[in-house]
């Protein structure tokens, strides 16, 4: 018999179902070769198609950070190259990964949840299973793998564009000449920062795709259910990005 649990335990029930789905996904990784076409397709959808919006957001956040840092450090005793030394690490450590993460929680997370949610409510997932196909291996694994591979790529794009944006705006507003900005950035550059940023983006890629797949896969209740799953996927992903960000920063730095 099914036991009806009190509602207060709902979060634990969700966590349990999420863990079970992940376990099933990990077991399905063995079949990865069968779904290589899907992975490639998802890498294009999740990764390549996200480049324009990620670049745009990165360009502006890099530019704004530079202008605001310049504004905060107005003093004849501070060399302007410090601006580069402040902007570049903040982009690499935090902005590059987190801004990209938030953006993709909306763009990628919502899309995955809506897609899988619609497939669930129109019985397409049941149809896959009824045919004898592993729906988790076919639908979820390629999306998560594509996310984990492509998020670091998008992170690199974001960092490059954001720093370029910072240099450009700093230079043309006259706040900091490009040469000084770069000299400052190089002087204080620590390679581990970039590694840390890459790790973050990889984790965010996993968090967003896994949560969104989970929300979409277990959608219930027609169009309204799909709407709810989509919203929950984006919001929950954002919350867990913040949490993961804090955990990573406090353990790895």
């Amino acid at each position, binding site marked *: *018999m*099914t036991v*009806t649990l009190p509602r207060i335990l709902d979060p634990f029930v969700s966590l349990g179902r999420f863990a079970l789905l992940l376990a099933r996904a990990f077991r399905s990784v063995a079949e990865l070769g069968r779904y290589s076409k899907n992975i490639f397709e998802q890498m294009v959808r999740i990764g390549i198609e996200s480049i324009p919006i990620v670049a745009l957001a990165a360009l502006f956040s890099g530019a704004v950070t530079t202008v605001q840092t310049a504004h905060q450090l107005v003093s004849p005793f501070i060399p302007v190259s410090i601006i580069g030394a402040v902007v570049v690490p903040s982009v690499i450590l935090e902005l590059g990964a987190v801004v990209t993460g938030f953006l993709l929680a909306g763009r990628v997370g919502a899309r995955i949840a809506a897609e899988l949610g619609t*497939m669930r409510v*129109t*019985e*397409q997932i*049941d*149809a896959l*299973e*009824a*045919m*004898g*196909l*592993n729906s988790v291996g076919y639908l979820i694994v390629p999306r998560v793998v594509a996310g984990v591979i492509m998020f670091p790529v998008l992170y690199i794009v974001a960092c490059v564009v954001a720093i370029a944006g910072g240099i450009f705006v700093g230079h043309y507003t006259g706040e900091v000449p490009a040469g000084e900005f770069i000299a400052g950035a190089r002087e204080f550059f620590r390679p581990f920062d970039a590694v840390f940023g890459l790790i973050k983006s990889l984790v965010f890629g996993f968090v967003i795709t896994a949560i969104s797949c989970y929300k979409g896969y277990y959608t219930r209740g027609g169009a309204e259910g799909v709407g709810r799953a989509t919203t929950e996927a984006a919001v929950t992903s954002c919350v867990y990005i913040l949490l993961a960000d804090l955990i990573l920063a406090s353990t790895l730095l």
Partner: protein
Amino acid sequence: MIQLRDIYKSFGGTPVIKGATLDVKEGETLAVIGRSGSGKSVLMKHMIGLLKPDSGYVLVDGVDINKLAYHELQKLRRNFGVLFQGGALFDSMNSFDNVAFPLRSFSKKSEADIKRDVLECLDMVELPDVGPKFPPELSGGMQKRVALARAIAMRPRYIMYDEPTSGLDPETSNVIDQMIKSLAVRLNVTSVVVTHDMHSVLTTADRVAFINEGRIWWVGSIPDLHECADDTLINFVRANEYQIGAGGASGNRPHQSVVPRQTN
């Protein structure tokens, strides 16, 4: 042969199936009838392991399908073709690719052979030219027929139909009913038709199982159905009496195709 034994199933504390025992015999077409929400589809989904019973068991060819490892269950499911209520075509693919999908996933056939098989399946559902069309471009009836073509692509031994005629106009419903009937003979399959459409039942089924209050209330052949004295079943059938009445208590099949069909 599919055997359901004392199946219980509840959702979120609400019992839907309360002890269902039912046999689907080799080669027959069994109609599972009952009111909307009576658990007909739920029962059908148990037969392919899409749902697991809270208690009781399901035997397919003597094997308890809920004791199988997942990959064994997957293998077993390839003996089944399922026509879902809304068709459940993959809307990311056109009709041809939908029908080809199971073949590409499971058979080692060449693309040329697959093409031949797909066209043959689309022919069987009398839609030879819809290959390039995407599901949203097709009418509801056509979607169901393409879905039926996909269901038979792997030449299953069992075909499950979930409300095959719901939401369709009477004429299209007749076409689907005739297809169910002819496929059963042509492909020599065992079919389960979940429906509340008595016209469909009388056209397609050899036997009928009536679900009521979560139990298998009545099981019997079509002639038995006409003789049946159970009030609950009679009331259910009466709701469709237009068809039954005009079809005659004799269950005279050729008659029924000209009987006006009640649309819901």
